[in-house]
Each structure stands twice: as structure tokens, then as C-alpha cells.
């Protein structure tokens, strides 16, 4: 599987209701550690929402330093977080998840 198989995929629940589209994949470095190396990155969850320039530049995280007007304009829009534990299966262009998506903390 490739990262591009997840990006832009439509996410639906097991009833077929749309939860959004994957616009990024969150990784955490706590996977298996090869001998003498740092731990591997593993997929922690999926960030769901519509693609936008602000999200592409990371403004959805609220940690970017910028004039408030720019931050407000580019940081608009809802981003939801789906933990990987809720992913049931990955199909071509579609990801089936269990339960509703949670809002990002």
C-alpha cells in the first residue's frame, strides 16, 4: 500500500454515510525499531476534510505564526480526525470506517 492510496480517498461508515475525504495522514514514530535505528513511523490516524490551500499549508493545526487575518482566512473549515483503529478496510479510492469521526482535539 502507498500513502497515495489513502490521500484523497472518500471515507464512509459501515452504513455508507460519508465522513469526509482524507487530506492528510498523521504518523507517529513509535513503530518497530530496526537494529541500531530510530523507531519506525506508523500511521496514527487520518485527517478528514475538504482540500484547501490553508490545510495544504498547515493552517488547520492552529500553530502557524502569521497575521491574524491570514490565519483566520486560511484556518477556516472543519477538520476531523479518524484514529486508524477505526479503519475497517481500504478499498480503491474508499476507506470504510467503524463509528463516527471524532473532532480534532
Amino acid at each position, binding site marked *: *500500500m*502507498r*500513502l*497515495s*492510496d*489513502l*490521500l*484523497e480517498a472518500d471515507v464512509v461508515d459501515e452504513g455508507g454515510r460519508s465522513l469526509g475525504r482524507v*487530506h*492528510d*495522514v*498523521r*504518523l*507517529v*514514530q*513509535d*513503530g*518497530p525499531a*530496526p537494529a541500531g*535505528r530510530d*523507531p*519506525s*513511523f*506508523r*500511521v*496514527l490516524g487520518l*485527517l478528514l476534510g475538504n482540500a484547501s490551500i490553508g490545510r*495544504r499549508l*498547515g493552517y488547520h*493545526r492552529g*500553530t502557524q505564526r502569521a497575521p491574524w487575518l491570514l490565519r483566520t482566512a486560511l484556518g477556516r473549515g472543519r477538520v476531523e480526525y479518524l484514529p*486508524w*483503529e477505526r479503519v475497517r478496510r481500504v478499498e480503491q479510492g474508499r476507506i470504510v470506517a467503524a463509528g463516527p469521526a471524532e473532532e480534532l482535539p
Partner: protein
Amino acid sequence: MTGGSDSRGRVLDAGLSLLDRQVLDRHGLCAGKVDDLELTMPDEAGGAPIVTAILQGPLALGRRLGGRLGVWWIAVARRLRNEADPRPCRIPFELVTDIDTAVHVSAGMDELDVLRLEHWWRDHVIVKVPGSGHAAE
């Protein structure tokens, strides 16, 4: 290191902090860009995919482009390769030593499988230029 961290380790968003970043070899030389990532499912059932490699080149980028442009991009890349089943250039992720504005790897350029286009260009074009075999003389 871009992104943040929590009690488990460093946390980053792959699209924002890895895709399209410059890869630098251990001497600081440019070794292509991150066009895609290879994810491998772990042996235990229910585990999350692990990032096992950086994928580079037109065969990796074409899938991200998608649509007709992506299909055309991949077709041209396959045409330029002599292999029966060409695959993207692959850099094992365990070679990654740091991620900041670039992705740093511990291997040298000659150890990485990233110069295929340059090699193809040398073998099919440059070699036919009169005098190319004696460039150093």
C-alpha cells in the same frame, strides 16, 4: 524536525511534512524528492501500517497526479525503462536520519537507487554525442 510529539514519539502529518520534500544524502547532495511513501501492514492483525520506504520518480508521482495526466505520466516513464515490470525508486525509511525542511538519509548518492533517469540519459543520449567518451581529455 517538523510536526510535534506526544508521549509515544514524534508526530507529523505525512502530506504536510514529508511529501515533496527534498531528499539529501549523507554529503548533503540532492537525491530527488519524496513522491510517495510505501506503507506496509504489520504481521499482527489489526496493527497500523508502518512507513517502510520513500518512493521516488515518475512511477511514484504519476499515481499521485491521477487522471489522464497521471496515466500518461506513468506510460511515458514505463516506455523509458527497459524492465518488464518497472517500479519506483525506493529508499528504505530506516536510512532516514532527520526530517526538517528536507529529508536527510544516511546513505551516499551512489548507494541510493535514485539516478535512473540520469543513467538512462547517459546511456541513450550522452553516449551518442561525438567526443562524449573522452570528455575528461
